[in-house]
């Protein structure tokens, strides 16, 4: 799947209620591209615990209950 282009990102930002100028959208696009390898690795990670995703709140419980 290809990354969203500038037009798509501008439309997304506007739809979500943010008003960014062209230079700012270009920054977002550059950041998305730079972050994609890490994001791809994250998506490829083997799931924890037999494939069932962890409720992120688990992390907080770990913090308190250890």
């Amino acid at each position: 799947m290809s990354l969203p282009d500038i037009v798509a990102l501008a439309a997304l930002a506007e739809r979500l209620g943010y008003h960014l100028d062209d230079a700012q959208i270009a920054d977002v696009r550059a950041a998305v591209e730079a972050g994609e390898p890490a994001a791809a690795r994250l998506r490829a990670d083997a799931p924890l615990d037999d494939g069932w995703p962890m409720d992120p709140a688990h992390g907080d419980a770990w913090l308190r209950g250890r």
Partner: protein
Amino acid sequence: MSSDDVHDLLDAFRGGADPRETVADSLARLKEVHEALNCTIAFLDDRATAAAADSARRWADGTARPLEGVPFAVKDVIDVEGVPTTGGSWVSSDAPAVRSAEVVRRLESAGAIAISKDATTEFAVGGPNPPRFGATRNPWDPRRWAGGSSMGTAAAVAARAVPFGLGTDVGGSVRLPSAWCGLTGLKPTMGAIPRTGVLPLSWTVETVGPLCRSARDAELLFGLLRGPDGVDPRAGELPPFMPELGDDLRGIRVAVVGGYLTEMCDAAVRAGIDALVASLADAGAEIVEATIPSASEVLAIGYRIVFAEAASVHRVNADRWSEYDPVLVSRISQGIAIPAVDYLLAQQFRVRLQRELDDVFAGADLIVVPTCPSTAPRLPDGTVVVDGEEFPLYAAQSRSTMLGNLTGAPGLALPTGFAPDGLPVSAQLMAPPHGEAVALRAARVFQQQTAHHLAVPSVRKLSDVSSGVSGTTPD
């Protein structure tokens, strides 16, 4: 204000020193320092003077509280009743806060006296040169940055205007300025200190912590600041905090973590870590090696979480981002484009990382990592230099601090010496969640053996930014 830490100052009060004089001296010193470093947004003269009079009375009549008369600085994302909280931004209302943040309230209930609201990068996530108030210079060299984001607090404490201050830490913002200014700074376990009354940035990551001149002060302050307040939903019931006594570290296992966390690390920083580890071993600690397999992913994934949450937080000002620091916008705006599934996968990565840290702590009580790869960034651009090579600020600064933010584990930055450029270097002691006591004990033992934390910047030429400011280390 001398080079005293909180303990020394309390001893002076017990010996008859007058808190009114101390607070007046502290305010005068802070104004002088501010002229040179641009560290402070508001001086709280009236408020502090009234509190000092009450402290003088309490010392005289025998009702002094644990921090009676001790002045402190407050990062300007933390509410102080009757004073605006600007977040360092043009966008903020200048209406005074109606109630102090819980951390300020606790310190004031213990007798401490807030004397200032101090500079921050805009909303604790902008660049080194916030448009409204400008950069804060480093007391060790005014051509360098005091650090981010708790930059004003760090400069004020390091320049000996106040003995300690409050900061916030989302990716290192207590520990990094502590490192760059030669201070001891604690990012506590997530949820240990309530955030009520603190401007939010990243709900699942942010913490509040003290920037101090010594580990013994950090220990004292942490004991007073921690515990639920019934409001912050992440600040739940805690196990007891039992400061560990003893002048040695027998029975303590310290893991030295290599790999990604030390790959980009200046020789002076590495030398400081080596000296710290040798000192801990001399004190009886057992040194072991450890690895954190996912460490190289921490920075990128941490920023995804922080920026997604920050973009959501700052949607409240979505029509006014044109008034924000452009660096701030360029950072948090990428959060808009992070799909929800990716954000939640990043949250689950935290569980994986916590388990990796669990594995390390199964064989160690503490781990040692750099606080940051270099000495303080250069102004105005914030670049850092590692072994002669220049790097952008954000490629370097949070490489080994974000680990604590994502796992929730506490991290204590402590000064380990000086680089050839005359600026402080720092290492970080990390403990398992709610293991602050052992990190503070180890730091206290290290500081009994060394004098790095006692070094004072030479402020003779602070106002001359064209000349370097060198420091001295007491023998």
